[in-house]
C-alpha cells in the first residue's frame, strides 16, 4: 500500500476517535434537552467542575482553602491524604447528584412552564456562577489528573503496521492514541446503557414524557422534580466522564469548559434529541474536520478544524434542519 493511503486511513481513524471525544460532551447536552427541553449552556462548565472535584477529592485538597486562608489568616491547603481513584469517582458522582438537586430546587423549580429561552438564559447564569464557584472551591491552577488511564501511541500497532507501506516509502506505522481508544470504549458503553435506560425503563419513559410535555406528564402522576434531578445527575455523570477523558489530555483547567464549543456542531448535525445521533454526529464531525485539515488545510494556511466543523454541520442542516436523528417538527395550520 502507498504511504499516502495509509496516512489517510490514519487520519480517518484518529478523526473517528476525536469525534468520540466530542460526542462525550454532546451526550450531556442531549440528555438534558431530551428530558427537559433545555439547551444546557453549562454542560462544558459541568465537565470542568466535575473534573476539578475529582482531582480535589483524590488529592485530598481542602475545598475553599484560598477563601479560608484569606479570611482566617491560616495556611491550609491539603488534608494530607490521598483518596483511591474509584472512591474519589464515587464521591464526585455524589457531588454531582447534590449539584443536580440544588439546580432543580433553586433554578428549575421556579421556571416550570417558562419559555425555553428563559431556561436557556438560566443555564447561562448557572455556567458563569459555576466557573467562579469552581475557581473559589478548588483554585485556578492547572491540576494533573491521574486515574490510571493509558496514554501515548500504541507501540504494538505501530510495529505491526510498519511493513504495510510499499518498499522505499517513508512510513512509521499507524498511530492511534491509547487514551482515545479507551474513550471510544467508554463512549460505546455509555451510549448503549443510556439508550437502554431511555427506551426500556420506566424512569427512562418518564424522562421522555416530561420532554414531550411538562403539564401532560404531571397530569399522569410523573414527578417533574424527581425526573429533573435524575436527568441532571446523569448529565453530571456524563460530564464527569468527559472531564476525565479531556482532563487526562490537557490537565484539569479552565479550558475544559470550552470543550462545549466542540460539541455544538455535533449537536447541530446529530440532532438535539438523539443519543445515537450525538455519537454519529461526533464521528462525522471528527472525520470531516481531520480529513479537511489533512487534505486542504496546508493549502489554505491550516487551523481549519474549528470553523470547518461548523461549516460541515451547516451543510447537513440545509438538507435536514432537525439534524440527522432529530425529531421532525411538524406544525399544521
Amino acid at each position, binding site marked *: 500500500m502507498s504511504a499516502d493511503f495509509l*496516512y489517510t486511513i*490514519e*487520519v480517518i481513524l*484518529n*478523526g473517528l476517535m*476525536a469525534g468520540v*471525544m466530542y460526542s462525550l460532551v454532546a451526550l450531556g447536552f442531549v440528555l438534558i434537552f431530551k428530558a427537559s427541553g433545555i439547551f444546557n449552556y453549562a454542560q462544558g462548565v459541568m465537565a470542568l467542575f466535575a473534573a476539578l472535584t475529582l482531582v480535589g477529592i483524590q488529592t485530598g485538597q481542602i475545598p475553599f*482553602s*484560598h477563601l479560608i*486562608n484569606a479570611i482566617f*489568616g491560616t*495556611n491550609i*491547603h491539603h488534608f494530607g491524604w490521598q483518596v483511591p481513584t474509584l472512591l474519589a469517582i464515587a464521591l464526585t458522582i455524589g457531588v454531582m447528584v447534590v449539584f443536580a438537586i440544588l439546580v432543580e430546587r433553586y433554578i428549575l423549580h421556579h421556571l416550570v412552564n417558562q419559555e425555553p429561552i428563559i431556561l436557556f438564559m438560566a443555564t447561562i447564569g448557572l455556567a458563569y456562577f459555576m*466557573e*467562579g464557584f469552581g*475557581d473559589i472551591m478548588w483554585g*485556578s*491552577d*492547572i491540576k*494533573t489528573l491521574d486515574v490510571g488511564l493509558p*496514554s*501515548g*501511541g500504541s507501540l504494538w500497532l505501530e510495529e505491526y503496521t510498519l511493513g504495510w507501506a510499499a518498499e522505499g516509502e517513508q512510513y*512509521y506505522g499507524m*498511530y492511534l*492514541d491509547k487514551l482515545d481508544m479507551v474513550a471510544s470504549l467508554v463512549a460505546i458503553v455509555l451510549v448503549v446503557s443510556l439508550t437502554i435506560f431511555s427506551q426500556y425503563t420506566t424512569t427512562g419513559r418518564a424522562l421522555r414524557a416530561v420532554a414531550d410535555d411538562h403539564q401532560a406528564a404531571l397530569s399522569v402522576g410523573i414527578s417533574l422534580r424527581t425526573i429533573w434531578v435524575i436527568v441532571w445527575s446523569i448529565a453530571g455523570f456524563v460530564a464527569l466522564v468527559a472531564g476525565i477523558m*479531556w482532563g487526562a*489530555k*490537557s*490537565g484539569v*483547567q*479552565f*479550558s*475544559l469548559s*470550552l*470543550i462545549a464549543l*466542540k460539541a455544538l456542531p455535533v449537536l447541530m448535525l446529530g440532532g438535539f434529541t438523539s443519543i445515537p445521533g450525538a455519537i454519529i454526529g461526533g464521528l462525522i464531525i471528527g472525520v470531516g*474536520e*481531520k480529513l479537511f*485539515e*489533512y487534505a486542504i*488545510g*496546508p493549502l489554505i*494556511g*491550516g*487551523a481549519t*478544524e*474549528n470553523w470547518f466543523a461548523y461549516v460541515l454541520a451547516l451543510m447537513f442542516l440545509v438538507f435536514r434542519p432537525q439534524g440527522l436523528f432529530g425529531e421532525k417538527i411538524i406544525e399544521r395550520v
Partner: protein
Amino acid sequence: MKFTKLATVALTTLAVSAPVVADLVFPSLSYRTGPYAAGGAPYADGYADYFTLLNERDGGIGGVLTAVPECETGYNTAKGVECYEATKGDGALAYQPLSTGITYQLIPKTMADDIPLMTQGYGRTSGANGKVFSHVFNFPANYWSGASRIINRIMEENGGTINDRNIALVYHNSGYGKEPIPTLEALATKHGFNLTLIPVDHPGQEQKSQWLQIRRERPDNIILYGWGVMNQVALKEAANIRYPMDQMFGIWWSGTENDALEGMGSHGYKAATFHNVGSDYPVYKDIQKFVVDAGLTAGDGSNVGTVLYNRGMYSAMLAAAGAANAQEIHGVKDITSGMMRDGLEALNVTNEFMAAAGMPKFGPEFSVSCSNHGGPGNVGIQQWDGNSREWKLVGDFEAPDMEVISALIKADSEAYAAENNITPRDC
C-alpha cells in the same frame, strides 16, 4: 437601625469608589479568571508582591509608597481596554497588561495619554523603535529576539550549520503566535533551513491533526509559540508521538512549570527565557520575610519562585527602577507618568544594579535609549529537568541576530509611523 444601614452603605460606597491614596500607582491588568488564569495569576502575584516588598522593606520608592490596584481582564482585549480607561485616572505611572492583544489596543492610547506601556517579552516587537513608539518599552527581549536565539541555539547544537534542516513552528493562531513568522522566514532565507508553519486555533485543546502532521513530516526541530492549554496539549502530544524533547524549543510563554505538566514526559524540553529560574536569590529571603510571613502576599504564596511569578516580580522590579530613575532625573518624589517615561528611557540595568536589588545575574544587562526601547535583546535558554521537576538555565543570555531583527523592526515601525501619521523622534 435605618440610619445605621444607610451609614454602612454610604461608607462602603466611599471605600469602593475612593481614589487610590498612594502616590506611585502601578495598575495591574491581571487575569485570575478565564482560560489563561493559570498563567495570569502567578504573574500578577509576583508583580504585586514586589511592590508590597518595596513598601514594607523600603517604605516604597524614594520614600513614597506604591499601590497596585488590580483590574481583571480575563485576557480579554475589550475588558483590558476598559480596565485601562477605568484606572488611568488614578495617577497610573505605567501599564503592563500581559497580553499582546491588549497591548496593541493600548499603544495609541498610552501615547495620547503620556503613560508608558511596558511589555516585557510580549506585545508589538517593533515597539523597540523608540523613535516611533515613544511610550512602548519592550526590553529586555521580544518575540523576535527569542526566535533568533532559539535558531542560534539550534545552530550551536548542530556544529554551526542548519542548512537544509527542517524546522517547524507550532504557533497559537493569533497575533501573538504569528509574531515570530517574519523573523523565522528571514532567518530561513539567511541560513538555508526549511520552515514549516503549523497553526493551532484557540484554545488548543485538540491538536491531533497538527501532531499527526509532525509525526509524518518528522521535522528536525520544533519551535513552540503557545499559551495556556495549547502548551500542555502540545507537550503531551509531542511525548505521545515520542518526539525527541531536547529538539523542541518553546518561547518563554511556553516554558513554565504549568507547561511541563507531564514531568518526565517533557524531560529535556528547552525554552527561551529573558530571566533566570528558581528562587535562590537574596530578594526571595526578603519576600519571605516582609511579604509571605507577614501574610501580605497577593496570592496564597504557593507560586513564589515559579517561572511566571519570577517574571511578574522581575517586571515590577524594572518598573520600580524606572520610577526611581525618574525621581532622580526630575528631582521630585511624586513623579508623573511623563516623568516615568523619561526614567524608563534612561534605564541602565547592570550586573551591579541587579546584585544591589537582590537579584544577581537574574536577568541580562541592558540599557535603554531614546531610539532603542528594546535593549540588545539578550536571551537565555532553560531546560526542563523531569527528575527534579524544575527548569534549569542551560544557555547564557546572548545576543540574537540583530542584523536581521533590526531591519525588521525598522521596516515594521516605519510602516506603523506612516499609517498613523507619526513623525519619528530625532534621536
